[in-house]
């Protein structure tokens, strides 16, 4: 009798807890895959496709599914490092050359207004209308270089963003301890 009672109490408890957990799972369901979002937060959102995926989100999804973490050149070595920290994976050298951040500039004398670059720009950073001169909104430009190939007159070039007083950074202090002679 006692045993039965004990068992039924345990069973009841199990049912109640199970129901609670199930309810909580529905109620507090996390929308989407938080890991993909976390990875996306690290990716630079340049949307350049250099990783071999059409944009940063697809690459983030691919990383979750086991893709290497060292394929995003705009993210640089630091991006790889942060992805490795997030995912607990090994740090790998970047699978490409690291470039300084750049911005695209249209040579406005040459532009024929064909609008091809507008279609290529992933972030709508180019303004212009058919047969009219186009120009790039520099602060919106991610430096993805996707507008370069479509331009029939090759009037778009990339320029390294120059260091100014506003974006200047203090350098990492030189560690002065030299190795023993």
């Amino acid at each position, binding site marked *: 009798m006692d045993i039965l009672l004990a068992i039924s109490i345990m069973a009841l408890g199990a049912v109640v807890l199970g129901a609670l957990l199930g309810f909580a799972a529905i109620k507090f369901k996390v929308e989407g895959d938080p890991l993909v979002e976390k990875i996306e937060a690290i990716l630079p959102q340049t949307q350049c496709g250099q990783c071999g995926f059409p944009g940063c989100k697809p690459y983030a999804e691919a990383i979750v599914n086991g893709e290497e973490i060292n394929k995003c050149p705009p993210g640089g070595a630091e991006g790889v490092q942060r992805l490795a920290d997030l995912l607990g994976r090994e740090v790998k050298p970047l699978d490409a050359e690291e470039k300084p951040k750049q911005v695209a500039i249209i040579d406005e004398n040459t532009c024929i207004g064909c609008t091809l670059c507008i279609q290529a720009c992933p972030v709508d950073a180019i303004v212009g209308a058919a047969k009219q001169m186009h120009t790039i909104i520099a602060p919106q430009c991610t430096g993805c270089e996707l507008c370069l190939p479509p331009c029939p007159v090759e009037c778009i070039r990339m320029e390294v963003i120059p260091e100014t007083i506003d974006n200047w950074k203090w350098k990492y202090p030189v560690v002065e*301890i030299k*190795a*023993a*002679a």
Partner: protein
Amino acid sequence: MFAPAPFLLKDVSVSQVMIQVCVALIPGIAAYASLVGPAILVQLVIATLAALIAEAVMLKVRGKPLALFLTDGSAIVTAWLIALTFPPLAPWWLVVTGTVFAIVVAKQLYGGLGQNPFNPAMVAFAICIVAFPALMSQWPSVGLQLSLIEQMNIILGWAPRVDALSGATPLDAMKTALKLGDGSFDVATLLANQDIYGNFAGRGWEWVAAGYLLGGLWLWHRKLITWHVPLAFIASLTLVSGALWLYNPAQFASPLFHILSGGAMLGAFFIATDPVSGCTTPRGKLIFGAGCGLLAYIIRVFGGYPDGVAFAVLLMNLSAPVIDLLTQPPVFGMKDKA
């Protein structure tokens, strides 16, 4: 490359700090030497040499600048603390083993100066007392008057380790006696045995402790240590020993005895105040010091080892990061919000 501000720097350096710590140890060493004989000076030399050589080798291996780190003096402080906590007539190889272990394993393998989570000297003490319990408990009997030559022969192993060596520290002797537990001894009768116990804490030991206290106060005056750790250490030791002493004065020695004997004073001012392995926040230091005092008492009275300071400090080293994290002081302007 532009040199960064500030362009003025106070005239301080790590080696200055370490040298001052050594200077502060001198009164204690003097008292100690007059108590147990000049052997202790020999031990200091042996430990210092061993520490410097071990440090040099390790720096070389790790590719660090020799001149810079050998002169920082931290190895010397470690060596001196080892020499002062080991039995004064311990064989030379024991001291060397302890020192080398302290420098190589407890310090350099963790990354060298500033990176060691445990106090190297105390690691050495703990390792040696576990590995060589007999040798580490052999203290010269008080009143054993040996010449420097005789002492050196013992240390260097050229003379047999005579029975006179197998004495114990007053602390150990008292514990052993009380541990017999048949009630045949009590604190009063033991202390009446003036041979070992002296007036308060064993003949001569109170002078050693006073020497350390003097040096410690000087360090505090020089602002090289803060009052938190020593005060908390001594206060907590006083409190627990006092409470138990009031409860049963026959079985438990007085607070004065505890403060002045063994490594309490050395620990409070020179070992527990080691900044690298200790706490850094003011409240953290209080907790750290109090913990050391409490654990030292528990281990020395109820544990199996002659003194508990080393283990107490190591245990508190272990918890120092957590204590620091939990005792972060509020920053300027945030006091009422914290």
